[in-house]
């Protein structure tokens, strides 16, 4: 399909060979969309991973007594909540909250005297990127926290205790023991979340629709628009295949990396 020109109905109009691909590489909008996907690796992957390790180990270290563990369970379930909400609904929820005129966020900001912060979230390109990034962190954090918490529970408590006895403070224990022991979890999370960032669709589609004017477009929304809006099925397929290729290459590198890592340990 990616070698053709086809509006999605009727017979295929023309066989183009690699011309769709040539067009894509010369298409500025595609490169903008692709660069956004790379930017979104930060809120989809890097920030949630760092924040997740941090929150998980704080929760694990300081809220493990019997009374506090109820608080810990509450924190964990609340942070994980965005993960089970269908993403299109997450999109709608945030879409109305950040609505510049009638949404709760701007009303709230104005009422507490931060009028200058009440940006036009859907019209100003930078504000839209910022809002979307926050939504992504909001979605992803629960996943990383849950995985890290389960990783921490298999950690040998005596190692941490011994370090504690030797006078290592929390930060040192975190840096030299906890974060290293969590290596396998970090690898899996980086693989899944970076892949998730590259193919991100629903948060963008349902919050900003890729707008304003393509300012938050990513490859998935771009190919969706080509597929439906422009009836350029061949072109959309080619965009998707490029994205798929990038993801497969990335996944293979990580898998290879992980295997050699495991072998190194043995």
């Amino acid at each position, binding site marked *: 399909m990616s070698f053709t020109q086809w509006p999605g109905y009727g017979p295929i109009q023309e066989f183009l060979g690699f011309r769709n691909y040539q067009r894509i590489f010369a298409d500025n909008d595609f490169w903008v969309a692709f660069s956004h996907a790379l930017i979104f690796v930060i809120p989809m992957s890097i920030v949630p991973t760092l924040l997740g390790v941090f*929150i998980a180990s704080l929760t694990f270290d300081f809220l493990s007594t019997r009374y506090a563990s109820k608080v810990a369970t509450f*924190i964990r379930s609340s942070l994980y*909540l965005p993960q089970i909400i269908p993403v299109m609904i997450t999109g709608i929820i945030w879409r109305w909250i950040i609505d510049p005129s009638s949404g*709760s966020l701007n009303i709230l900001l104005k009422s507490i005297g931060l009028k200058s912060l009440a940006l036009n979230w859907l019209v100003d390109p930078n504000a839209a990127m910022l809002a979307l990034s926050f939504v992504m962190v909001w979605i992803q954090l629960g996943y990383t926290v849950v*995985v890290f918490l389960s990783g921490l529970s298999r950690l040998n408590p005596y190692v941490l205790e011994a370090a504690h006895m030797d006078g290592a403070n929390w930060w040192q224990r975190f840096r030299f023991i906890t974060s290293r022991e969590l290596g396998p979890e970090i690898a899996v999370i980086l693989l899944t979340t970076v892949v998730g960032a590259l193919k991100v669709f629903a948060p963008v589609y349902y919050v900003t629709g890729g707008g304003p004017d393509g300012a938050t477009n990513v490859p998935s929304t771009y190919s969706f628009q080509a597929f439906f809006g422009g009836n350029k099925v061949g072109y959309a397929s080619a965009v998707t295949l490029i994205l798929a290729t990038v993801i497969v290459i990335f996944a*293979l590198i990580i898998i290879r990396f992980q295997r050699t890592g495991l072998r190194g340990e043995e």
Partner: protein
Amino acid sequence: MKLKRFAKRTSIGLALLAVTAIWLAPMWLTLVASLKSESEYKHSPVWAWPKYLNFDTFHDVILHADVAQKLSNSLQIALGAATISVTMGFFIAYAISIGRLKYRGAVIAICVITFALPQESMAFPVYTFTKLIDVYGSIPPVYISLGILGSAFSAYLLQATMNHFPRELIEASHIDGASRLQTMFRVVFPVMRPSIATVFLLMFVNAWNEYWFPILLLPDNKDQPLPMAIAEAFGQPSFTSNGIDPVLASAASLLAILPSLFIYLNFQKALVRGVTLGTN
């Protein structure tokens, strides 16, 4: 010393609770907005609990969106997809782990790549294919495709746990004269049942939340699953200057997440176990 530690513990606890509060804030705002009338939303603080509970908006949404029909669509898709992926996944995992498949590394890699690929790269061809064979617009192609694709993930998860299956049990069943099929269904399956249930739940939730296949394959609003139908009907803003109706949007989204919330509150432990299954 003890007091100091208590103070430290409390302050860190409070800091974590503050983060949690930010995380729950959107849900709170949505809840209170959905229960207010138009005019109360405009004139009362956005975070305040409504003075007069107003359920009319929910009533409107249920009437307008035919929620019962959408719920049954969602159930059909999620149950169908989960059943197919777990059945196929079980067979594949069995071949990989217990059958000691020759190219197991390659099969696992294919599974990982399948669930790493962008959904649309598979949804576009399926879209074209369903049009070709004239089943476009019906529900079964959605859950069949989702089920087959999901089988890669469920096979991956199941083989991870099946690798720890005690080999003595299999050898014993062979010695007792059980055929291969009998070993599979009478020995391995019962032991694996908890993991299979966990993976089933995970697949169910994934299919419930799926969007690419329903968006592409179900153009008619009456066939769409609940979250998507609600999103299309009440959330799709025209991305221009005229904004979204806060009260309507929040009531609609709240209704759409109720089933997910129900599943989450009842099966939280199993779900979390499923999510962490693949990581260790």
